[in-house]
């Protein structure tokens, strides 16, 4: 029978990533010494499952790597070894390493085993270092080069005739023997009866085995543990000992656990390896592939969510049955009131059902938050800063897709706060602050949005430095008189390069402009507040879900489009006296303190418009990624919640369009992608220039 194992891969990857997350968070809470039983068990179990699964599904690179980790963890678990800080660090690094390997495999790439090699060697070193010198009868799979003496064993195996029926398979045992060393196996068929007397369930075979190995008698006996009572087994040592240094390396891995079981005294020299030199594994190759791979395609849903869904469907069915009954047979005016009532009930059911379905995709933000303790720990170490991470609102739920996409911008902002915000301990003490800085991640719901705050109590943004940088890069002029807030917000401008502030951490070639663009791509926004000497707060606001959005329906000729409500600042009729044409290229509306470039939607989309004069239509002012822009349309229609459908699934990406939806009358309507539209209209630069001009004018007053 053939079973296609690949159908289980995705489940395996998911549970492995969960296991790695659990490992990581438990490791972060570990102190050197003898760890708490439950904690180390959880870590062990995760490694053990990954090893078992990867072996079964044929991911040998992973199972081989996990093997050394599991071995060391087992020794720690059994109290045969003290846990050192060095080991904790190594375990954490291996979590990253396994994650990378699994990510590669998930993307159908072969993981680079070389990357895991330094870590593997470091573990092997620890495992070896623990062996008592001269303890040559306890070989280890991880020390193939150790010079030890081989022993010749002769094994006579005559299994009980019934062992097959109890699930014991001699072939497995013979394989295990072969793994111990160099085995010559001879089969004895003399007891097989005539064919007519053969009972297929009985085992008539016996074996004579010559084994050359460094193992001990117990190692061999252990293989037969299960059948020893009903079988005849003799293990004898044939005298000659051979120094077998050279071919030891050819041997298959051998386990040492059982021999070590009897030597708890190893504990005494357990912590000596903490001084071992380890080459840290290279940083993950491509961050891009990593984030891509974490967008998984399945979801785990709690039972109560499913139950509530089933309840809703139950109600829906009842309502439907009621309506069917009412409309069956002769129609009678007296039924009208009941039908209306039924329709209202149906609307109510549908809304509830929609909410419940949406809840399925909602997951607590702790899935994202959980990666920060590690990040903060590692980063503060690197920066020689003391930082206490506080997580709040971890149970705040948001859409899975939003969650997957918010993670990278958050990492960037957190790194930024640690790098540029929080001061080194001396500096903090000198300014009368606690030595340890505090970084708070806070999540909560507000209206239809989820808000995530990244708060630090550091030195705040360096407004003077930002200003001079912005002048240097031509974003503003020396003479411009901007408020502190306006200057601070310049860090989100695309041209604001922080080249000479680039550190290993926050300056990874990605600027704050990218952070803002990524968040805006999710129909969200990011704001900052900073108080000099006190700290700064970045506030990310995102829609709860990407599956539904509140839309403003607009019309251009006979085309109906949808503009996401979250982008809309206001809609107005244009006062022609406030419109200027810039260089014959585009029109700008002066709107209070600001200049707003105008996009004529019909031109950008190549439609015939009803209105020809600017005064006739309406201007919808929206927030683009780097400033305001006005979209000129024929008419504003209603607002409604729309379910987002993919246009790319059956067609392709369309410039200026983010997706489609189906309106109440069954027709398709396209959803406008503001940033894409600005690009399509060739106004990207114009929007920024005018936005800045507005800021400067405002500052001048």
């Amino acid at each position, binding site marked *: 029978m053939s079973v296609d194992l690949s159908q289980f891969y995705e489940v395996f990857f998911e549970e492995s990533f969960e296991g790695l997350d659990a490992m990581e968070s438990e490791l972060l809470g570990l102190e050197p010494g003898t760890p708490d039983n439950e904690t180390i068990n959880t870590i062990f179990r995760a490694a053990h499952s990954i090893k078992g699964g990867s072996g079964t599904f044929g991911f040998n690179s992973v199972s081989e790597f996990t093997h050394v980790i599991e071995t060391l963890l087992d020794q720690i678990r059994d109290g045969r070894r003290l846990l050192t800080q060095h080991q904790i660090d190594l375990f954490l690094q291996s979590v990253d390493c396994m994650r990378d390997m699994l990510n590669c495999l998930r993307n159908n790439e072969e993981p680079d085993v070389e990357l895991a090699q330094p870590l593997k060697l470091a573990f092997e070193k620890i495992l070896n270092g623990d062996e008592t010198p001269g303890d040559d009868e306890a070989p280890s799979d991880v020390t193939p080069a150790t010079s030890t003496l081989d022993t010749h064993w002769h094994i006579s195996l005559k299994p009980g005739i019934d062992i097959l029926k109890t699930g014991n398979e001699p072939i497995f045992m013979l394989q295990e023997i072969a793994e111990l060393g160099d085995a010559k196996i001879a089969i004895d068929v003399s007891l097989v009866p005539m064919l007519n007397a053969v009972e297929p369930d009985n085992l008539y075979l016996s074996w004579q085995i010559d084994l050359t190995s460094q193992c001990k008698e117990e190692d061999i006996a252990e293989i037969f543990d299960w059948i020893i009572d009903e079988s005849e087994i003799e293990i004898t040592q044939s005298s000659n000992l051979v120094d077998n240094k050279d071919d030891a390396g050819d041997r298959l891995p051998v386990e040492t656990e059982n021999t070590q079981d009897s030597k708890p005294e190893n504990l005494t020299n357990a912590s000596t390896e903490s001084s071992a030199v380890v080459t840290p594994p290279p940083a993950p190759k491509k961050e891009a592939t990593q984030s891509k791979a974490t967008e998984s395609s399945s979801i785990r849903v709690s039972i109560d969510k499913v139950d509530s869904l089933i309840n809703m469907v139950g109600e829906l069915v009842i309502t439907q049955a009621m309506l069917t009954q009412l409309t069956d047979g002769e129609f009678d005016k007296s039924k009208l009131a009941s039908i209306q009532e039924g329709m209202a009930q149906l609307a109510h059911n549908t809304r509830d059902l929609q909410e419940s379905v949406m809840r399925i995709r909602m997951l607590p933000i702790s899935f994202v938050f959980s990666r920060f303790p590690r990040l903060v720990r590692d980063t503060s170490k690197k920066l020689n800063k003391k930082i206490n991470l506080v997580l709040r609102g971890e149970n705040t739920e948001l859409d899975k897709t939003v969650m997957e996409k918010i993670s990278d911008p958050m990492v960037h902002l957190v790194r930024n706060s640690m790098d540029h915000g929080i001061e080194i301990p001396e500096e903090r003490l000198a300014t009368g602050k606690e030595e340890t800085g505090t970084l708070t991640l806070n999540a909560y719901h507000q209206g239809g949005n989820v808000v995530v705050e990244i708060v630090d109590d550091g030195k705040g943004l360096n407004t003077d430095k930002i200003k001079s940088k912005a002048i240097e890069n031509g974003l503003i002029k020396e003479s411009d008189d901007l408020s502190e807030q306006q200057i601070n917000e310049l860090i989100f401008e695309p041209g604001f390069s922080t080249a000479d502030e680039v550190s290993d951490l926050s300056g990874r070639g990605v600027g704050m402009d990218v952070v803002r663009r990524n968040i805006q791509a999710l129909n969200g926004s990011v704001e900052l507040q900073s108080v000099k000497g006190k700290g700064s707060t970045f506030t990310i606001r995102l829609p709860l879900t990407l599956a539904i959005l509140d839309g403003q329906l607009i019309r251009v000729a006979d085309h109906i489009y949808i503009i996401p409500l979250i982008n809309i600042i206001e809609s107005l009729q244009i006062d022609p006296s406030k419109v200027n044409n810039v260089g014959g290229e585009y029109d700008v509306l002066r709107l209070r303190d600001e200049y707003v470039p105008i996009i004529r939607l019909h031109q950008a989309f190549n439609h015939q418009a009803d209105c020809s004069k600017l005064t006739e239509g309406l201007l919808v002012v929206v927030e683009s990624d780097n400033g305001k822009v006005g979209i000129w349309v024929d008419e504003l229609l209603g607002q409604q919640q729309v379910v987002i459908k993919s246009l790319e699934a059956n067609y392709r990406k369309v410039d200026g369009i983010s997706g*489609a939806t189906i309106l109440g009358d069954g027709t398709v309507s396209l959803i406008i992608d503001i940033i894409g539209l600005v690009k399509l209209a060739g106004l990207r630069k114009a929007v920024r220039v005018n936005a800045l001009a507005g800021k400067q004018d405002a500052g001048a007053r």
Partner: protein
Amino acid sequence: MNIDELNARLVESTVNEQDYFDEFQQYLTFLMNGEEYGVDILRVQEIRGWEKCTVIPNSSDYVRGVLNLRGTVVPVIDLRVRFGLANAEYSQITVVIVVKLRQDDKDKIMGLVVDAVSDVHALKRSQINVSPELGDNQNSEFIQGLGQVENKMLILLDLNNILD
């Protein structure tokens, strides 16, 4: 044959597929500018009457827009415009053939506007004249071969990557 009958035969065709698999291939045939064309019936999902659809801004002229196919957004291509045929008009009998085809290495569902649907024909491999010399005809990349049924000639199409 009307649309309902043809849709019924589409269902049937999937049932009979096994029996015919070795010898025959079934084609749904349709008319464009007086010629009869055929597409592999297994790719055809359904046939609907033409209805106005939502225009996609800045798309090629042969892309009529998108329509709602039971909740899925499906692009509609006027095959007549795509093939540069004359008289691409919309009338009572203009239909949209909904097909599943490969585009940019993905399966996509699209609607094809044609003048009218004609029939379902089972053709033996031997009845198909594969890739005749068609010179520099711009549509030759979509022509799989020519088939002969009774006295009619069918132009058999392979519409993968119909979007350029």
